[in-house]
């Protein structure tokens, strides 16, 4: 179906269902229950799931397929956000022109940065992309280009936002927040109360989710295309590729640009949900985060980056919310001394300590599970399959699940 094999089709269907039903699936606990803090079915978080999902899917097209590790992809995320906010400032709150511009501009930057960075490979490439991203961060943070022309492009530390003094030449009276072609406002949310549960269906989320599904579908097509095969070949053995008469540079550049455009789109969507753009979106920590999402989910697999993005964003949210009071509640079944000890042990890893947990997680995944969650899942599945079947079949590793 849709030019995909059977397994890929079912994968796309699963992702589609997951994305469309997420407000239900991720909201399993009644609103008043103690477990409600583990719910993730509210618009803000759901939006982040799918937007960072897009970011990670795009990153995976570069890193997962070609093996080129970019440490500066956050630059494109920032560019996308700036592009969208600029369109708000110049035209109006319709998100479509901004998103189109976000993809185009990030693509152009990706051509430039990719062309230079891809002159080297391996760690040189990683460091070059990192340097570029840091440079872009510095430029945005100090509004360097703006100052050069005696105007403001990124609005420096404050971040770019819409002011009433902006031209907004297409603005209608009814517009005050981002909307899609005047049809629906991104923030509009329908709340369904069903018994003890309360589900939120947010227009912005569904818009992002549909884009993510399309982005995912496109990435499956790329994975299964001759172009995708060439990228995987490049990751496997550049030397053989060169001596097979193939020019690796344009292949790598094309992958870099496509993944840069994905990142730009994700950045644009961030600004579509919340009409702001700041330089911190470009910082190396943000670049590191998308690397982590991809690795954690499983680099080079289809579904991995989506899982990784969801996993990280979910736990970031939950972990940052937990404080000592919550911990005391959790461990309240224990004797007092033990309860305090447990809280003391867990304390560094929660709340503001989320980054510590993230760092440890990062190391554990790279050390013990280089294939990420997908590989972990496969290992478990294999374990069960072996138990069921006493004569273990030769497990055939498919490169992408």
């Amino acid at each position, binding site marked *: 179906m849709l030019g995909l094999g059977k397994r890929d089709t079912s994968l796309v269907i699963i992702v589609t269902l997951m994305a469309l039903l997420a407000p239900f699936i991720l909201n399993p606990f009644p609103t008043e229950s103690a477990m409600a803090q583990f719910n993730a079915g509210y618009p803000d978080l759901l939006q982040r799931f799918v937007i960072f999902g897009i970011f990670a899917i795009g990153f995976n097209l570069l890193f997962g397929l070609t093996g080129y590790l970019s440490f500066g992809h956050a630059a494109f995320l920032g560019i996308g956000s700036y592009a969208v906010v600029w369109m708000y400032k110049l035209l109006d709150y319709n998100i479509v022109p901004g998103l189109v511009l976000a993809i185009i501009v990030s693509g152009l930057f990706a051509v430039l940065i990719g062309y230079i960075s891809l002159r080297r490979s391996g760690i040189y490439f990683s460091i070059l992309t990192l340097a570029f991203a840091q440079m872009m961060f510095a430029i945005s943070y100090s509004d360097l280009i703006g100052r050069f022309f005696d105007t403001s492009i990124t609005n420096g530390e404050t971040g770019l936002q819409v002011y009433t003094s902006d031209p907004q030449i297409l603005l209608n009276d009814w517009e005050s927040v981002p909307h899609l072609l005047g049809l629906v406002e991104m923030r509009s949310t329908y709340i369904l109360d069903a018994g003890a549960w309360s589900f939120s269906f947010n227009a912005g989320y569904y818009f992002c989710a549909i884009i993510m599904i399309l982005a995912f579908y496109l990435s499956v097509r790329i994975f299964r295309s*001759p172009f995708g095969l060439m990228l995987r070949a490049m990751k496997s053995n550049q030397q053989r590729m060169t001596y*097979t008469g193939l020019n690796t540079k344009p292949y790598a550049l094309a992958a870099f640009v496509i993944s840069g455009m994905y990142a730009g789109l994700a950045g644009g969507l961030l600004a579509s949900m919340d009409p702001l753009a700041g330089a911190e979106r470009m910082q190396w920590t943000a670049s590191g985060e998308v690397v982590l999402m991809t690795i954690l989910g499983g680099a080079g697999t289809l579904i991995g980056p989506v899982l990784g993005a969801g996993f990280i964003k979910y736990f970031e949210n939950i972990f940052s919310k937990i404080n000592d009071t919550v911990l005391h509640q959790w461990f309240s079944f224990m004797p007092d001394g033990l309860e305090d000890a447990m809280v003391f042990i867990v304390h560094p890893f929660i709340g503001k300590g989320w980054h510590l947990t993230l760092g440890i997680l990062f190391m554990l995944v790279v050390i013990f599970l280089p294939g990420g969650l997908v590989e972990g899942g496969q290992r478990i599945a294999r374990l069960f399959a072996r138990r069921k079947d006493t004569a273990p079949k030769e497990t055939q590793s498919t*490169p992408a699940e």
Partner: protein
Amino acid sequence: MGILEVRNVNKRFGGLQALGDVNLTVEENSVHAIIGPNGAGKSTLLNVLVGKLIPDTGSVSFDGQSVLGRKPFEINQMGISRVFQTPEIFGDLTVLENMMIPIFAKRDGAFRMHAVNSISGEQEIIDQAEHMLENLNLADARHDHSASMSRGNKRRLEIGMCLAQEPRLLLLDEPTAGMARADTNNTIDLLKQIKDERDITIAIIEHDMHVVFSLAERITVLAQGSPLVEDSPENIKGHPKVREAYLGETAA
């Protein structure tokens, strides 16, 4: 005029003269072996031929066109394929995928962005690749990871991938180095079969005299970066200069 013409090629690395005034003509549809003791400059010469190294002086032309200054992939597209000392294949891909890549490269050239059409739609390419694998006796392994194959089979696959491009000149760099006798003989048979079935020129760098004398029609002996003699295998065998150059090396 041969298909490959090397004229007065010199290459120095710092103080070391790696190639000194090398002249070599490889005739079309012949099997030409280049032998010589370690450090004779065989690998340097090969790297010059495929564009990995640029000589200091001299010219190299393939089918009347200069190859100097061209990138390795361009030289390959001209019709020169190279087999490496240790088999260079796409270890992460399946055997079938390995075989499809050179066929794509032949059809689509050095770069073409088929990003949305599916591989499974490329029936023609798959058929060709399957056919090649059958000829190589590798069809049963087509869905295996190529990295998991034996060294001998990796070598077969690599040679097959080179042939899939239908090159006019096949360069082999010690194709049987580190192989067991049985694998070596298999490789010799494969190369003989290729030579019989196709219009192809083969240039082979080899240490193993058994391989050289089983295949070569013409032999150039390289010593200290310069060609010592060039002659037919029969004459090379008893040549005093060759014995001298190989003194202390594996007896010819």
